[in-house]
Structure formats: structure tokens, C-alpha cells
């Protein structure tokens, strides 16, 4: 399987190298990229936080808290929200969009394919 037209596939990890829930931070063309293994597949994001350039992909994966009203809250999207190690901006690890300001703030995300073999990031 290939990535989007015009993109170039780069092998970043062996097929069983990154456990589910785990991640690997790799260097591609001088860019640092974090590759995450979610239960249903892989996603990849630029490591540099758009705020003040912290190593975003070293942050913890957490969930999203939403509240329909005072005193009630839901915790879901467990393991899909990436929190910056510095000022705690949170990003949807699936598309790189900021959780609080999705239209204005995002970090670059890259398609990932495996095709049953090694993990390939398309840059």
C-alpha cells in the first residue's frame, strides 16, 4: 500500500518493534517525528510543539475530559490525546489538531502504512 500521491515512504520501524500503546521518535530528513501505535493502527506527528517548540511527542498520552454541565464529566478518547511536556497544550494524536483550538493550532501529521510489514511514514 502506498501513501498519498507525491509523498515518499520512509521505513521507520520493524513490524513488531513498537508495542500497542507505545511510540518511537525518529529522525527523517532532519525532522523529528513521533510514531504512535494505537490499538487500531499507527499515527505519526511532527515532534516539535507549535507553541514554544517543546518535544511534544515525548509528552504523555491521556484522554479527553468533556462535561455536559456542572458536576458531570466524561473521560473518553483514552490514550488518544497527546499532552505537551511543557505547557500542557493537548493535541488529538490522530490528526494533530489542538484539542482547545483545533482550527488555529495544529501540529503536522503524517500518513503511516504497514501493509503487514515494516512501519512506513509518508513525508
Amino acid at each position, binding site marked *: 500500500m502506498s501513501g498519498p500521491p507525491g509523498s515518499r515512504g520512509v521505513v521507520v520501524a520493524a513490524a513488531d518493534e513498537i508495542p500497542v500503546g507505545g511510540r518511537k521518535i525518529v529522525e527523517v530528513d532532519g525532522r523529528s517525528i513521533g510514531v504512535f501505535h494505537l490499538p487500531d493502527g499507527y499515527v505519526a506527528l511532527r515532534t516539535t510543539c507549535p507553541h*514554544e517548540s*517543546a518535544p511534544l511527542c515525548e509528552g504523555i498520552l491521556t484522554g479527553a475530559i468533556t462535561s455536559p454541565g456542572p458536576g458531570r464529566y466524561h473521560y473518553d478518547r483514552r490514550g488518544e490525546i497527546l499532552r505537551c511536556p*511543557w505547557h500542557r497544550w493537548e493535541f488529538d494524536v490522530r490528526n494533530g489538531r489542538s484539542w482547545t483550538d483545533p482550527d488555529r493550532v495544529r501540529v503536522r501529521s503524517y500518513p503511516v502504512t504497514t501493509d503487514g510489514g515494516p512501519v512506513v511514514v509518508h513525508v
Partner: protein
Amino acid sequence: MIDCDVHNAVASDSALLPYLSARWRRHLEQVGSRTFSPFTRGHAYPKAARFASRHDAWPPSGGLPGSDLEFMRAQLLDAYDVEYAVLNCLYRAPEQRNADFGAALAAAVNDWQVEHWLGRDARLRASLTVPFEFPDLAAAEIERAAAHPGFVQVLLYPRTSAPLGRRHYRPIFEAACRAGLPVGIHAASTTPGPITASGWPSYYIEDHTGLAVAFQAQLISLIFEGVFDRFPDLRVVLMEGGFAWVPALMARLDALQERLGDEVPDLAHPPSYYLRHHVRITTQPMEEPERPGDLVPLLREIGQEVLMFSSDYPHWDFENPHRAFRTRVPADLHQRIMVDNARAQYRFTS
């Protein structure tokens, strides 16, 4: 770049034992820390992050963030080409209810800083830890320890048991001036009383926001109690209290003094004069206006001599010196904030 606020941490109480007399070693081991704050071990409000620190600032050696000089070099001093860094150790010596124990701990922290920090990297300078709720003991510690050229400032916190302008604190300012050191006031969420003027709030976000108000109260007190008139050489540095509030507060105080000044007729100058001539303010946490460019007129209004860059490493709201402003700051102003103002304020070379 000069970084005016960096935190070095005492890895554990046992690191201070070599600097304590047998009497206070026993006290530390048998009684331990008892602070003015309502919690002996933690803080009244849980911090946003563990040890209020960057997630990536825990050293591989296993200690607390800020406890490993090697790691601090890699993450801060070398990474950002820091010329000087001013260390503010927030070990809880100044908050001890037992005055003599607090004084002994403060002296131990200072001696530990000389040996483990100032003596090991020529870029480091430090603030003196003093038991400031007991001003005579604080003054004695300034007298004892200020001779070491690595100490460049006396460290206080903004939430004191009374406003710092009250005359009972005068020995501290007197001793600081005698030693030729500025007095730095650094954010700390510890306090002998409720943390806001209206009592105890519920959340850390209130604690953190409320710090700016505490700084304002101290500045107002220092001005109207005449501390700067009494000590013309005194310099005060406000650290980690924000700065967007400064122009509004100064304009208000100047206007009020014209109407209410009869109550404080001894004041030699308008309130804003003291800000420009006696007060310096560190930048972190940087103000981040909706339109980033709005920052520049604010910086100009505060005055080009007033602000000094700080990163607050290793704390969670650390500022990357290359990205902190998020807008283009004119080169001359940038140079003052990043280097010149700190150089004029502190005795880096002596």
C-alpha cells in the same frame, strides 16, 4: 542570553545534613519540616505537573528536576547558550515555624549552593535563602553569606504574613542594601495566611492566577510605606508574577496619589517613579495576547529598562528563549530584555 530565574533543587533533606549542626540535624530527622502552610509535605494546591516541573525535566540520574547540574547543563545552559543563570532555590527553609530551625536550614541551603552549584559552573549565580518572617535572623544570614560573590540577590516570596513595606521587615532591606544586593520576590504558593485577599479558593488555577495580585500588593506596600525613599539604593526584582498589569496599576496609583496623597505626604515621587527606578520584573510567564503583536506596545509602555528575561527552568511553564515572545520584538528592546537589563541589575562580575 541571561536567564534570571532558574530553579536548583535540594535532591533530598539528607543533602543538607553536612551543613547542619548536630542539634539541627537531630531536629530535621526527628521533627522535620513544619511550615506556616497548612500542609507539611505538599502544597495547599496540587500543581499542574509533578514537582511543578516539565515532564521531560526529570534527570536520567533519578533525582528531582533541577537537582542534577549535568542535566541542567544539557537542557538549559548549553542548549540555549546561557551566559549567566540566576538560581532561585525554593527549598522550604524560609517557611519554617521554628525560627531558629528555619535560619539553620537557610544557612545550610546557602552553603550547599556554594559547594554544589556556584563552585561547579562559572555561569551560575544564586539568590540567598533567608528566613524572612524573622527579619533579624534574615538580616544576620545576609550578613554571614553575602560575602560570596556568587550570591547576587536576597530571595523572598510574595505571600508574607504582612505586606513587606511594614516596618518590621526593614532589617532585611537594610542588610540587602549594606551587602549591595537586590531583593528578589519569587512566586511561591506557600503562605502563612489565606492565599487571596478574600480567603481560600478551591483550585490551583486560582492559586496560580492570584500570584499576580500578591505581587501588586507587595509593590503598593513597598511604595507607600516609603521603603524606596528610606533605602535609595534598594532594588527589587519581581519574579513570576506577570507584567501586563503594570501599566494599569501605575496609572491608577499616580492618579490616586494626586487625590489621596495627603495621607502619605512623605512620598518623594509619584508611584510610577519607583517602578522605573527601583523595580525590575522577570518575563516568565510571558504574556500571550490574542494578537501576538500587541505585546510590543506593552513592553514599551512598561519601560525598556524594567524587564529581564527568565525561563523558569525546570518548571512546567518553562519559556524557550527563542520562542518566548511569539512576535518580533525590536532588536534594541530585545537586547535589553535578554541581556543588558540583567547585567545592569546584578553583580555578575566583581
